[in-house]
């Protein structure tokens, strides 16, 4: 049996980070992953991540994956792909299917970082082709370059449903609706807002009654539910679609840990059955650690930190690191982790109805019910002035741990006091209109407004991640936060820059009184 100091199962952010830390300390390390590509979820994530610099915020997920992979390779970590771990036995024997054979390995320490699997819901017709997981849609689009369908209904308004809805739009699909049985949008408001402003309708307190079709789905019917999740007759809405995406949560995949005899607990807030782990990722079985989504559904950013801790802990367990180093690393990583676990979406606050921001501002109810902050509510957070000169309008209305806007501004115009605080403008306005904040906001919630460009017009610069990029001089309409047409608009500038990392900036000219409303552009072609 081939022996390794450290065997890591799963090459996602948690597994790669764990292997890096182990290998750094001299452990002979291998990672097995059943996929043909390493990186786990990261390689599908083409969007910019939230957080701060330490959490690699504003970097797109797949870039983070590439960085981790390069670092692991540089440290001599062996990454074996197309290698499904099918068993984990006593004495840390790892059984792997590789090609057409089953091989046995022995790890002196084992870290399980197998991530999670998508939940499903059943309804009449859910087994028709075309009813797929949102993660599957993401894999099709972002890994294989295949559009899952033309017209899609998304069930689930959590972050996965919202992010994938946006990516479906980017891939050129029509998203007919985002529905969710919950009464409020569960994901970040900014993710919802960037979908809503393109004209997608949100149906909260709604779920699917049935999907229809023959060879594949061709229609879906949703209806409103009451507090007891019973359908309310007469509220049915039918959409013709060829795809239904389910984004109804994830469940940790902890089977290997169960097989190895680790104690598991069922904790609904963590997504289901999870191993009992201590602060260093150690399970109840000697020398077996768990990190990432497998020990509770969270984020790639936290998965990386948990992975790092588990990697160092494995090194310490094997005598390759001293306890003091481990304690220091745990303290440092825990600080980073606790930063991520702050704010309105903190694990402990999930499901709570938050009424006020930390700043004491009444939260936007429309954002929770319809996916966008309405014109009246936005005034509580920001306002566009009708004066000449640039001004960033920051439509970031929830306390989420994120601050790239502050760090990127070369003139220090933006303050984010604690990481979850709402961004604020400094009193003096030194904005040069460079647009870096607009491009770097992972929530696409920053706009630049020049309130008076002459002739009663204003310029609004918005983040634009669709193709084709409209050209200077193009004519079209501006859409409001709610995705409805607010006025005619002309493209005065379209900027592409490597500093913007593929978030292009579109500047549109609109009547000055519309500067506070115009938040998206639909082209009607060149004049």
């Amino acid at each position, binding site marked *: 049996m081939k022996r390794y100091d450290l065997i890591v199962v799963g090459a996602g952010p948690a597994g790669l980070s764990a292997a890096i830390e182990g290998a750094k300390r001299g452990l002979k390390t291998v990672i097995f992953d059943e996929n043909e590509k390493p990186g786990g979820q990261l390689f599908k994530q083409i969007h910019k991540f939230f957080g701060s610099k330490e959490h690699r915020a504003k970097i797109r997920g797949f870039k983070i994956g590439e960085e981790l992979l390069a670092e692991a390779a540089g440290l001599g970590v062996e990454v074996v792909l197309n290698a499904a771990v099918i068993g984990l036995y006593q004495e840390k024997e790892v059984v792997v299917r590789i090609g*057409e054979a089953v091989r046995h390995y022995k790890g002196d320490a084992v870290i399980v970082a197998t991530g999670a699997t998508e939940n499903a819901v059943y309804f009449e017709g859910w087994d028709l082709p075309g009813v797929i997981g949102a993660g599957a849609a993401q894999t099709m689009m972002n890994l294989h370059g295949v559009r899952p369908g033309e017209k899609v209904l998304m069930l689930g308004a959590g972050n996965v449903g919202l992010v994938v809805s946006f990516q479906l739009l980017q891939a050129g699909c029509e998203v007919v609706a985002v529905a969710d049985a919950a009464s409020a949008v569960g994901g970040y408001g900014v993710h919802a807002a960037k979908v809503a402003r393109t004209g997608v309708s949100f149906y909260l307190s709604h779920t699917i009654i049935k999907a229809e079709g023959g060879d594949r789905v061709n229609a879906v019917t949703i209806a409103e539910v009451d507090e007891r999740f019973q359908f309310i007759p007469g509220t049915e809405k039918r959409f013709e679609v060829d795809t239904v995406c389910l984004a109804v949560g994830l469940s940790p995949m902890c089977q290997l840990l169960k097989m190895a005899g680790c104690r598991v607990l069922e904790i609904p807030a963590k997504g289901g059955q999870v191993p009992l782990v201590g602060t260093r990722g150690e399970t109840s079985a000697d020398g077996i650690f768990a990190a990432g989504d497998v020990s509770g559904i969270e984020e790639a950013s936290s998965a990386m930190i948990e992975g790092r801790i588990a990697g160092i802990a494995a090194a310490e367990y094997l005598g390759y690191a001293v306890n003091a180093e481990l304690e220091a690393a745990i303290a440092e990583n825990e600080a980073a982790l606790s930063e991520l676990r702050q704010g309105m979406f903190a694990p402990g606050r999930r499901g709570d109805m938050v009424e006020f921001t930390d700043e004491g501002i009444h939260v936007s109810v429309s954002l929770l019910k319809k996916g966008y902050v309405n014109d009246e509510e936005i005034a509580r957070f920001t306002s566009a002035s009708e004066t000449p000169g640039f001004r960033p309008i920051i439509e970031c209305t929830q306390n989420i741990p994120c601050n790239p806007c502050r760090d990127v501004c070369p003139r220090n115009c933006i303050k984010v006091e604690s990481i979850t605080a709402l961004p604020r403008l400094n009193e003096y306005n030194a904005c040069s209109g460079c647009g870096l904040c607009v491009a770097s906001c992972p929530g696409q919630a920053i706009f630049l407004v020049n309130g008076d460009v002459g002739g009663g017009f204003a310029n609004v610069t918005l983040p634009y991640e669709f193709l084709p990029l409209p050209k200077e001089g193009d004519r079209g309409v501006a859409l409001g936060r709610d995705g409805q047409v607010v006025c005619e608009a002309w493209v005065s500038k379209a900027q592409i820059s490597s500093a913007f990392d593929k978030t292009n900036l579109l500047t549109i000219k609109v009547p000055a009184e519309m500067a506070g409303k115009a938040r998206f552009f639909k082209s009607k072609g060149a004049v």
Partner: protein
Amino acid sequence: MGAVERILEREFVPADDDGVVVCRCEEITKGEIRRAVHDGIFTMTEMRRYLRAGMGLCQGQTCAKNVKALMARELGVPPLELEHATARSPMRPVEMYVLANEEVAD
């Protein structure tokens, strides 16, 4: 075991959506699962053996939560009271010829 006695006393009541498939791999319907509970199947492990729900290609990855919730509702207990089925190797479906091709030495 109050719940058990209660369920055995209660009649199986057919529902409109009993025909909906819950376990896609083994094509087990909602009605079959509900009825099995009335037949005396009270645990996830028994359900796997009795109907094969959760025993197919995905090994219950897709349906286990839903089967569990359905059984709990039928039994009138909170889902947390039902234990998940035992995890067994192989964790992923493996063809017999591959399983037979074991490379022990290396």
